[in-house]
């Protein structure tokens, strides 16, 4: 297991030696300005979509990035592929600072960082054939592979489990799963070193999700490509990623290897997320897992809560949480490489709790009266 740490700068790399980091993100911030006012519009606020994210992806490593809708996962992905201009922070790829690189400066890196998009229906140009779509990365970057571009496209189609004869077909002739395979083939066209997969399976039918995830896993293992796998489906991330970062409202609240996050989570939010995963195994001996129900929505990223951003929905929140922002640290009881940003972490277990934690007073009242009645 690699031990790539994501530590605050002052802490340093501590006692573990990180495996070659391919991508390093420090304090990445994206604030989308909000303009208002009349007659002259001026900045009246900002959506703090991503606010100081630290992340490291090692060579050939697969890192999962999970969190609720609107927590900034996709924005993080688009910042790393430089589709958006970060407000602050630093993105280092293979030792090269690409935070504010221009199109020209990005050119050599572009071929190494690729992206897979969420919606296979909008990520393929409906006016272009499959061959043209998969060929375009080579055209844009002026790469002429051995045997010609068309041969390479046919190889790629075969690699992702499509018929090479589909070269001249149009995207609308394919199903969602097949379209996503085309997207994967496009991402692989230039032999990238890092693929940012932005919810690559969440738009797909569940039965197809497995196929695409397995395809990505095969690609990752056989070609040694590093992945930043953005998803809200914890089961998929568990299947795919060696290391997992949990995001909440623009911040990473917990990061660690797969085992640490899934079996020894410390942050209350991670607990809540894991308890929401439906369980298939019906073991008679096993006690039912705790249930944690988070009430309401994620607070507005325009006015995020002070201190710990999760405190408004946290059952352990105290005064300290409102005033002091918890740093992302290896807190006591965590194994190496497992960082948690919490003042009052939970026990490192997913075992059953005595009773359900219900965070919605209204729901609590409702269930209480139902129990009595």
């Amino acid at each position, binding site marked *: 297991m690699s031990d790539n740490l994501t530590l605050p700068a002052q802490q340093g790399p501590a006692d573990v030696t990180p495996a070659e980091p391919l991508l390093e993100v420090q304090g990445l911030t994206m604030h989308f300005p909000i303009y208002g006012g009349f007659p002259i519009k001026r900045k009246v606020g900002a959506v703090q979509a991503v606010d100081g994210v630290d992340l490291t992806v090692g060579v050939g490593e697969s890192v999962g990035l999970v969190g609720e809708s609107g927590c900034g996962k996709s924005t993080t992905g688009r910042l790393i592929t430089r589709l958006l201009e970060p407000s602050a922070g630093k993105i280092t790829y293979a030792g090269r600072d690409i935070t504010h690189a221009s199109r020209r400066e990005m050119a050599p890196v572009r071929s190494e960082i690729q992206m897979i998009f969420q919606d296979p229906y909008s990520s393929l140009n409906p006016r272009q054939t499959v061959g043209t779509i998969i060929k375009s990365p080579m055209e844009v970057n002026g790469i002429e592979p051995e045997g010609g571009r068309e041969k390479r496209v046919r190889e790629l189609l075969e690699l992702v489990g499509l018929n090479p004869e589909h070269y001249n077909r149009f995207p609308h002739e394919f199903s969602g799963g097949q379209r996503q395979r085309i997207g994967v083939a496009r991402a692989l066209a230039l032999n990238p070193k890092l693929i940012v997969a932005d919810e690559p399976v969440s738009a797909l039918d569940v039965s197809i999700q497995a*196929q695409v995830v397995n395809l990505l896993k095969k690609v990752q293992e056989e070609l040694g490509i590093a992945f930043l796998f953005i998803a809200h489906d914890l089961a998929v991330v568990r299947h795919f990623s060696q290391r997992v970062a949990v995001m909440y409202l623009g911040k990473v609240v917990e990061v660690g290897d797969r085992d640490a996050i899934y079996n020894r989570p410390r942050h209350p939010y991670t607990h809540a997320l894991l308890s929401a995963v439906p369980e298939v195994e019906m073991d008679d001996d096993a006690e039912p897992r705790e249930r944690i129900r988070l009430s309401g929505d994620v607070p507005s990223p325009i006015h995020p809560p002070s201190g710990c951003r999760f405190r408004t929905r946290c059952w352990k929140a105290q005064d300290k949480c409102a005033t002091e922002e918890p740093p992302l640290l290896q807190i006591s009881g965590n194994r190496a490489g497992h960082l948690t940003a919490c003042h009052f972490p939970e026990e490192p277990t997913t075992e059953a709790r005595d009773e359900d934690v219900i965070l919605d007073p209204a729901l609590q009242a409702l269930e209480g009266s139902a129990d009595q009645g």
Partner: protein
Amino acid sequence: MSDHQGTGAPEGVIAPTGMGGAMDLAASEAETLEKTPGGPLGTGPAGKPRSLWSDAWRDLRRNPVFIISALVILFLVFISLWPSAIASGSPLKCNLSKAQEGSQPGAPFGYDGQGCNVYTRTVYGARTSVTVGVLATLGVAILGSILGGFAGFFGGFWDSILSRITDVFFAIPVVLGGLVLLSVVTSNTVWPVIGFMVLLGWPQISRIARGSVITAKQNDYVQAARALGASNSRLLLRHIAPNAVAPVIVVATIALGTYISLEATLSYLGVGLKPPSVSWGIDISAASPYIRNAPHALLWPSGALAVTVLAFIMLGDAVRDALDPKLR
């Protein structure tokens, strides 16, 4: 239009619980695809790829509205190129002694107040209408889509400026603007009329183009191309323009009919073309005082104008039905 959506690969047959070993199912999926040549996957027997344009063309060929309007338009184009093929004599050769006479051999539509052959004048009048309609539409479409497309693509300051300018142009009443601007023009050709239409017409197309470019540029495939390092010109030409052009084509086709009727309106009001030019608007204007004595002199050019405008608007409708992806 289910045949446009069907893909035929039975992906739903996999047990949803099996995360492992689903890879081999991919192979079977591909196999199934291969085994359905033609069919729902429907490349033609020649293996020719089917694009959305060819789909649209297929739809159009089956649409009776399109066939009728296209035949009318083809006929109009033909007679405006070679009017002498179906009309003998000159539209300017008039004989006052035959003024207001009715239908007779050699003049199936009769004669107007000046003793001119209404049939000949109606046939020759098509040239003016088609020329003005086509050229004004081309000018409007080119100017409007370039300005609107760039404003939509780059956004920001120039977009705001352009949007305010279009607002100003929308505020100008077309007929009043025509009366003011064209009354100072002395040239008796179609060019001032076309120029005026382009001047007042481009904001309409510009807005459509701007909106459809903004929609297209937000698509993930544009982001994907950008992530590959594609240049702005490549994004615009390869990815955005082909996907944004359909609404512009539709609106332009429908607008063509209105430009033809606008030309007639302006000529009727005496600020468009003036005699001795031949135009349906001029004829309608000249015949209207004699409507009780010689209604045929008014009805034939009016009817030709109405049929022409209707044909272009129907064509625009049919094209919209074929290109509108929401109906697919």
